[in-house]
């Protein structure tokens, strides 16, 4: 009766435990505690939230291990951390710290403009961003155990999160209504592994848990993404760039659970104070858009 560790089952399984929950970006141990107390299912430990990465410019890299360790010591919930796309050495470093999930993230500056990390090489599970079904299945093919639609991080504008979630769901519906003989060409068209295309068609959903991310700033935004069919939400800048982070965090947690109960959504949306200052995605020059990073 041998124990098996780092199997696909336990990697994907942790994401299943996060379903219906909110994963919050935190930049200090104090933030992490506020997030845990508000009911976050996990925290994403990083040095700057996406809104600040945008404002500061320059190269955004993996966070200081010291910060990540302090956050891991502070909370009892899972701790995630980000690496640059393709930067497998940053991933090796996070693995040696024992973080619970690695986000190979377009929010950081890509280290490789052609290849993502071979995530099968790691014991720690990975979450990756996607804008469409092909991108999601390529990442799963590389070993991602969880997917998040990208949205446009650090904007407080939910429009891209909606676009990406609708695109993925729409493509899955199209796939389900397709005759069998069209599958191979569809796989070729979207650039996805054939076996995963087949599996997605059979399941009627992505083979791994799929959260929404990028631009979620209010309880109503969280409810919107949940009603569109995602399994949970990431909130980055939306909480700690707002006027009353603890209150807003609690409200978004409640909204994610009671996403189809408008009376509760109305109740939790009351008197939340100032939301983060938003930046309309259509006002951002194309060269500054984050979601297009990833191949």
């Amino acid at each position, binding site marked *: *009766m*041998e*124990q*098996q*560790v*780092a*199997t696909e*089952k*336990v990697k994907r*399984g*942790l994401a*299943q*435990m*996060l*379903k*219906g*929950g909110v994963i919050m970006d935190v930049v200090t141990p104090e933030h992490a505690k506020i997030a*845990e107390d*508000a*009911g*976050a*299912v*996990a925290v994403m430990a990083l040095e700057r939230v996406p809104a600040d990465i945008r404002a500061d410019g320059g190269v955004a890299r993996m966070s200081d291990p010291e910060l990540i360790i302090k956050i891991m010591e502070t909370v*009892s*919930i*899972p701790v995630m951390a980000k690496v640059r796309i393709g930067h497998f050495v940053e991933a090796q470093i996070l*693995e040696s710290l*024992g*973080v*619970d*999930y690695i986000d190979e993230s377009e929010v950081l500056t890509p280290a490789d403009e052609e290849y993502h990390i071979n995530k099968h090489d790691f*014991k*720690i*599970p990975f979450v990756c961003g996607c804008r469409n079904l092909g991108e999601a299945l390529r990442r799963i093919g590389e070993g991602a155990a969880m997917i998040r639609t990208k949205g446009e991080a650090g904007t407080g504008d939910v429009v891209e999160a909606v676009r990406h979630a609708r695109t993925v769901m729409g493509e899955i519906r199209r796939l389900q209504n397709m005759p069998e003989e069209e599958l191979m060409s569809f796989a070729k068209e979207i650039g996805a592994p054939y076996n995963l295309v087949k599996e997605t068609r059979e399941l009627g959903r992505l083979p791994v848990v799929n959260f929404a991310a990028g631009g979620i700033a209010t309880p109503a935004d969280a409810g919107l993404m949940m009603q569109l069919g995602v399994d949970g939400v990431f909130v980055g800048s939306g909480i700690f760039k707002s006027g009353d982070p603890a209150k807003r965090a*609690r409200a978004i*947690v*409640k909204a*994610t*659970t*009671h996403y189809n*109960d408008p009376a509760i959504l109305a109740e939790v949306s009351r008197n939340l104070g100032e939301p983060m200052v938003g930046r309309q995605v259509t006002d951002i020059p194309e060269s500054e858009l984050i979601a297009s990073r990833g191949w």
Partner: protein
Amino acid sequence: MINIGVLALQGDFHEHTKVLQSIGVSSRLVKLPRDLAGLDGLIIPGGESTTIGKLAEDYDLIEPLRQFGQQHAIWGTCAGAIFLSKDVKRDQPLLRLMDIEVQRNAFGRQVDSFEIDLQVPFLENGESQPYHAVFIRAPMIKSVYGKAEILLKLPDGAIVAAKQGRLLATSFHPELTEDDRFHRYFVELTQS
């Protein structure tokens, strides 16, 4: 007809309802106290116990769940087992229904999550057919006292399942496997 509730505040509640459906048992998601009416039993799924506890507190579910558990069967998997316990040695909302002390994340972090085949004699064909158990950042039952009894241990002696009347706690996740024997065991428990 048997109707089992699945607490749907957060976690892998859909995985439980899928297994129940596959064995022909109807189920209902429970998010508010009124959802408990008329149920024969309740499953508290895996998830984050701190999140589930806080949401239960915020929506006044703690007392109704305690009363439900005094009359009906409840099964907690992983976070659900933590939520059922009397003590976790830290400050978080608990139902305190079972005489067990649970240690959260007792096997380590995610990198230590594991799968293992276990002999579970009380399941159907349990003597001959091993049960494949999945542990994810799993809790361990550190002590069992009072009216609770030990149901299952790992080969190294760690307690991973306990029972108290019609209350059942497992550290692992039967909802993540194709094997439906634990769910059938629980459905029988609701009828005992």
